[in-house]
């Protein structure tokens, strides 16, 4: 992570040094490549230049297509050839309040206002319709920031014919319609402009000179927020917040002053600020973000802080707890391993600049925002960073904490059994393995984009592609959910097979590492073979492409009894086949099928 690209950033610095920063970021490796088409109602180049930096910093390498200036409507509806040829993964409708055309007159009747609203919305709906039918890819649609001038002052908001009122109405209605179509993600430009401050956001001079509606600072905020949305679409948002304790979650040093004397609660301004930050953390946890503690303290004493009557967070809210005297840069990887997540899924918050510095230096994949020393600002800095942004919430996100709590008990259980089979049997596992269903398309897309270890081909898919595969009879596409006596692991495995006469090409096979060594891959194979035989398939064709992270499945097909038909000289690729015998005996014995 380049720290200069984390919020709070210096827009002037980023613009001035953009070319060098870009050059340096591109020296990295392992990218998600994204073809991003931008249909813009203004000159978008400045925002896109900055967007590229933010995306590169997140491991996403964009290739841009730009519509001609202010031809976003025409290129979406009529002159689509160039856009279709570009084959975008994502299309961004890069519009803003400068593109609103049908404001009502100040004396307009309710009917007239309604017609203006419909005229505006119809323009965007026809763009969505045309693009989704022609391209079938994900769309990002900006809403509208409040107008920079208010001709009648507050009445502009009070009166339904006022521009401020009209734009708010437009935003609410656009959100409602976009929510009905999962291929459309709303990008909340209105909030970005408010956060920036309208006077720091808009610059009429630049609009007249270059058709850029924003100040450089405004462009940077726009680009950063858009990058967060794109990161969320690709399932690359962070999953875990790692927290220091003393002077981060409460005031004072618990080891020196004792648990009774830490500052938390509503009695003092300082206590209120820590309470507010704990509440912000708890909100994150309740929608699926893991919380972990990493503190330099005696563990028993550190735990007492969460028994304080005013503590909002309780020990049960913490998915991992490490308090010792080792460097935090050594403890954080241990937390990552215990939770089975990557360092690039973690955000670290500590009031101590020295601790932040060592974690940044030793663990560049961990995001370490410059939170400062004032806890009252921690929620703002974290929030603005957009580390945990999502484009929707699935029930798996909400349940994730339950799943991780179960993991710790499972580990404890495995040490008391004579052999591994006995342990698996005791888990009382049940799996639901079936064809892709609408309710799971989001989670499936997420898994294809973030699973790196147990992933045979590491092919990434957008939600539209997954939706297309789900409804295409040429594919056998399976998901697997796994539950056991400790809880529901959620949707953890995906297979996508493409039929080609009597051969099924397995284009994707992945599994979440939290269920590794549970025989889930055997259960998936059994169902795959069952479905393949029903479809008249005689042979399964498996493929392995090596990446820096998926070595653990190099022998996956061999273990399943496939025969190798090809091996690249450098070992980077291999191909496998399995002829389906009529007397195939299901391999899985420990997992009961429930669907």
């Amino acid at each position, binding site marked *: 992570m380049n720290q200069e690209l984390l919020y709070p950033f210096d827009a*002037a610095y980023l*613009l*001035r040094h*953009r070319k*060098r920063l870009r050059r340096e970021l591109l020296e990295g490796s392992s990218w998600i490549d994204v073809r991003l088409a931008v249909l813009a109602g203004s000159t978008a180049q*400045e925002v896109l230049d900055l967007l590229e930096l933010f995306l590169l910093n997140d491991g996403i390498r964009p290739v841009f297509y730009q519509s001609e200036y202010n031809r976003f409507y025409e290129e979406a509806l009529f002159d689509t050839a160039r856009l279709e040829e570009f084959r975008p993964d994502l299309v961004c409708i890069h519009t803003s309040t400068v593109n609103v055309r049908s404001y009502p007159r100040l004396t307009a009747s309710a009917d007239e206002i309604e017609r203006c609203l419909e005229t505006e919305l119809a323009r965007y709906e026809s763009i969505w319709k045309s693009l989704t039918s022609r391209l079938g890819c994900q769309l990002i649609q900006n809403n509208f920031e409040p107008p920079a001038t208010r001709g009648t002052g507050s009445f502009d908001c009070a009166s339904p014919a006022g521009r401020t009122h009209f734009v708010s109405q437009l935003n609410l209605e656009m959100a409602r319609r976009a929510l009905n179509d999962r291929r459309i993600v709303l990008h909340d430009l209105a909030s970005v402009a408010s956060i920036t401050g309208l006077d720091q956001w808009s610059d009429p*001079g630049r609009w007249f*000179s270059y058709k850029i509606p924003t100040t*450089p600072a405004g462009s940077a905020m726009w680009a950063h927020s858009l990058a967060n949305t794109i990161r969320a679409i690709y399932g690359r948002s962070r999953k875990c917040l790692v927290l220091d304790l003393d002077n981060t979650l409460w005031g004072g040093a618990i080891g020196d002053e004792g648990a009774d004397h830490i500052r938390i609660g509503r009695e003092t301004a300082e206590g209120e600020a820590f309470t507010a930050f704990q509440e912000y953390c708890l909100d994150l946890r309740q929608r699926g973000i893991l919380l972990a503690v990493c503190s330099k303290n005696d563990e028993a004493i550190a735990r007492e802080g969460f028994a304080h009557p005013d503590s909002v967070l309780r020990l049960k809210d913490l998915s991992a707890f490490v308090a010792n005297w080792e460097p935090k840069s050594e403890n954080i990887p241990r937390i990552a391993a215990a939770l089975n997540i990557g360092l690039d899924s973690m955000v670290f918050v500590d009031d101590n600049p020295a601790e932040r510095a060592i974690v940044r230096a030793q663990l560049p994949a961990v995001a370490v925002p410059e939170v400062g020393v004032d806890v009252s600002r921690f929620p703002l800095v974290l929030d603005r960073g957009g580390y945990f942004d999502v484009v929707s919430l699935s029930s798996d996100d909400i349940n994730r904490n339950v799943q991780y709590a179960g993991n710790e008990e499972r580990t404890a259980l495995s040490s008391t059994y004579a052999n591994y089979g006995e342990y698996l049997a005791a888990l009382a596992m049940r799996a639901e393995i079936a064809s892709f269903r609408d309710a799971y398309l989001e989670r499936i897309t997420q898994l294809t984009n973030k699973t790196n270890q147990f992933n045979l081909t590491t092919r990434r898919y957008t939600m539209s592609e997954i939706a297309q595969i789900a409804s295409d009879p040429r594919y056998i596409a399976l998901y697997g959910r796994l539950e056991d006596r400790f809880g529901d692991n959620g949707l953890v495995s995906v297979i996508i097979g493409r039929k080609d006469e009597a051969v099924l090409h397995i284009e994707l096979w992945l599994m979440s590492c939290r269920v590794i060594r549970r025989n889930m891959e055997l259960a998936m194979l059994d169902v795959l073979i069952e479905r393949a035989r029903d479809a008249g398939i005689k042979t399964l064709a498996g493929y392995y492409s090596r990446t820096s992270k998926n070595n653990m499945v190099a022998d996956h097909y061999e273990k399943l009894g496939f025969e190798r038909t090809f091996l690249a000289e450098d070992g980077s690729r291999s191909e496998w086949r399995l002829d389906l015998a009529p007397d195939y005996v299901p391999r899985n014995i420990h997992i009961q099928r429930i669907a």
Partner: protein
Amino acid sequence: MIDILEHLQLIFRDVLDDQGLIINRESNARSVEGWDSLAHINLIASIEQEFHVRFALGELQDLKNVGDMIDLIERKQQR
């Protein structure tokens, strides 16, 4: 204290990502590699920020070369 030309040269070097770039009063968009319309927008924003000045719309249209920029910055700073 460095003079305006030296100061501008630092800005040009950063924006155009060319640390060996030498400019003089006669340098213009045709003679300096990479000084296209987008780089120009970026240069103007960086100059406004660095010299704490704000250019009016009419003033920007008359800038033909680095010399014009220097004169304009000087006029702005005296006001």
